């Protein structure tokens, strides 16, 4: 044990004097989190960017103005960035990808509505975008449906006004009758529409079907990417075995009273401790820079411990299959990248089809990220204990296996 302590202390000293690699791998998750935050926003709910729509009003009527005005009111104003433009310029700019869609209101739009005639508006979508033009279409479709319905509700009144407008005569009794009709209609409608009698509340649920506050983008991304880079950091510690083999210090250690098993366990302990330090550092910086609420401190602390035990065990086990730096680069980089890809460190697993999700659940990344998310969503410790227990036990078992095989391979390899 004494020897392991000396070896660990020696490795810490070396890493302290040459921290570039570890600091680099720590810095990268922070940069990525910053980028994701810039791209997807830092609010609680994941939001899409504003949909840029160019609007061409070839009608220039009250009705077309009303419709375009409605698209810039209330919540829609936050969803849509509407800009009026001439048609030719609009088409050119759309082709250059400057908007998600171009809305063209034809001439006589207002007249047709006035007369109760069917009319059509055109929405030209940006072919280089998949989502935002679709949202533009849904919103405008909803708007036109609403307008159609409104026309239908007031059909009688509008037809009366039109009839008299054609006659260019508005007798007083007609006006007062119409006013009463409108008032009656509006009174009837106001019961349902002012304020709207139906509202929709959106709730996001956790896997246990409890209402949860949604995580900010940074809270989502930082743990996901951090798990990947913790694997790389641990890998860097174990790669030291190969550089020590090359430099001759491993041979020197073998000739000393230290045995190989102690040496290997010192690497496992070093990588676990460094991993814990790095994770803690990321958690603190996540709180300070991105205001991430990590949840219950005890749960997080236990997760940090168990996750790093698992990572150290996993890497030690993988490392027992390599003999040279090139093999290490080949095998470990491949496995880490693949696991990270499948496990949700690069793309949220929710985006994957079920066939891929099956494999996601086999990765260490998946369970680490899931545990982080559950804790941040306020789940009690009792619910994540099974995951933590599994991590710790798997980590220890893998460490034992890894140390056995690594010992055997190093014995052979040094000769």
């Amino acid at each position, binding site marked *: 044990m004494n*020897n392991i302590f*000396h070896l660990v202390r*020696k490795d810490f*000293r*070396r890493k302290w*004097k*040459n921290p570039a690699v570890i600091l680099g791998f720590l810095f990268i998750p922070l940069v990525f989190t910053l980028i994701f935050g810039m791209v997807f926003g830092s609010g609680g709910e994941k939001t899409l960017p504003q949909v840029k729509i160019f609007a061409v009003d070839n009608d220039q009527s009250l009705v077309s103005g009303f419709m375009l005005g409605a698209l810039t009111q209330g919540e829609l104003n936050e969803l849509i960035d509407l800009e009026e433009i001439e048609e030719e310029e609009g088409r050119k700019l759309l082709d250059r990808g400057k908007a998600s869609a171009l809305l063209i209101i034809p001439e006589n739009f207002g007249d047709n509505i006035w007369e109760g005639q069917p009319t059509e508006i055109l929405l030209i979508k940006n072919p280089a975008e998949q989502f935002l033009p679709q949202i533009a279409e849904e919103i405008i479709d909803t708007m036109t449906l609403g307008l159609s319905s409104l026309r239908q509700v007031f059909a009688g009144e509008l037809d009366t006004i039109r009839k008299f407008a054609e006659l260019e005569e508005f007798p007083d009794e007609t006006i007062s009758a119409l006013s009463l009709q409108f008032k009656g209609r509006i009174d009837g409608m106001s019961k349902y529409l002012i304020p709207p009698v139906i509202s929709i509340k959106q709730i996001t649920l956790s896997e246990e079907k409890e209402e949860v506050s949604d995580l900010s983008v940074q809270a989502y991304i930082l743990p996901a990417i951090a798990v990947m880079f913790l694997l790389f950091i641990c890998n860097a510690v174990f790669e030291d075995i190969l550089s020590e083999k090359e*430099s*001759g*210090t491993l*041979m*020197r*250690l*073998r*000739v*000393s*009273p*230290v*045995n190989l098993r102690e040496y290997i366990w010192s690497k496992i302990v070093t990588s676990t401790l460094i991993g814990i330090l790095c994770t803690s550092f990321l958690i603190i910086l996540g709180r300070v820079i991105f205001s991430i609420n990590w949840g219950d401190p005890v749960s997080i602390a236990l997760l940090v411990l168990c996750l790093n035990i698992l990572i150290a065990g996993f890497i030690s086990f993988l490392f027992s299959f390599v003999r040279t730096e090139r093999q290490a680069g080949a095998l470990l980089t491949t496995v880490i990248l693949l696991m990270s890809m499948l496990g949700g460190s690069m793309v949220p697993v929710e985006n994957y089809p079920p066939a891929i999700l099956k494999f996601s659940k086999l990765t260490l990344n998946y369970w680490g990220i899931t545990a982080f998310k559950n804790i941040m969503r306020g789940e009690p410790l009792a619910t994540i204990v099974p995951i933590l227990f599994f991590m710790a036990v798997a980590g220890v078992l893998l460490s034992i296996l890894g140390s056995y095989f690594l010992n055997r391979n190093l014995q052979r390899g*040094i*000769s």
Partner: protein
Amino acid sequence: MGRKEMLQIEHLSKTFDTIKAVDDISFEVTEGEIFGFLGPNGSGKTTTISIIAGLLRPDSGKIHINSLDLDGDLKKIKRLMGVVPQEMAFYEELTAKENLLFWGKLYGVRKKELDERVQYYLEKTGLLGRENDALKKYSGGMKRRINLIIGLIHEPKLLLLDEPTIGIDVQTKLNIYQIIKEASSNGTTILYTTHNLQEAEELCHRIAILDLGKILALGTLDELIQIVGEKDIVIISGKFSIDMARTIISEFQQATVLSIEERKLVLSLEASKNISTLLEEFFKKGITIDDVSIKQPNLESVFLKLTGKELRE
């Protein structure tokens, strides 16, 4: 003298694939002795050292260190043994002091004693004042010195040195020799491998000459030189073929051929009495002589006689 055998090697052999790296060698080294292993690259020196250090398992043979069997008592033996490998085996990011303290602690040297030894060896090697610099900032010579004293910091009973002075300046070499001699006089048994003849002559109490895995000769310098006798070593260079040289020498009884190749002949003979006669024979045959050199018998001539080739640096 009453000194015990610190190292006993009996019928040691090791083969790699089809190459017999160590071929049935046996020798003993007395406590406090500096025992030299002299031979060219590939002669089996490093393999022998690796086996003694416990890094390689021999195919056959027995090794006893301080009466302990290497097979059964490796753990105890490791505490008694120090190794100075050919490559610079230390942590470059750490300082000299940090390296020495680390290795000393691994061998169980107590703090107070360790601090004193660190101070002592740093002073001995002229590195006091630079002990807090990272080793990557050291020159080659300084690194060699640190490489050596790491092996000595726990005052081993047996020290294995594998060509510890490769590629360094004279001053550093002399410093290293001094430290080794001091260690020897303090009772440390030293096994020193080298392919440098002068070094072996200078340092070693006894020398084993190795080639192709075998010990060709073993003894003190004087004993080894006896192999070539008291005659001078004469090297003749000129425009002659091997056959021509053989013809001339066959007629010349006083000379012993040590080595013969195109344009170069190495002989053992009493130069003062016979050199002019020999050269006349060459001239009679119309052979042009470019150079003649005459040397006192030394380790080089011993090696030449035993192996038929020169020991090149």
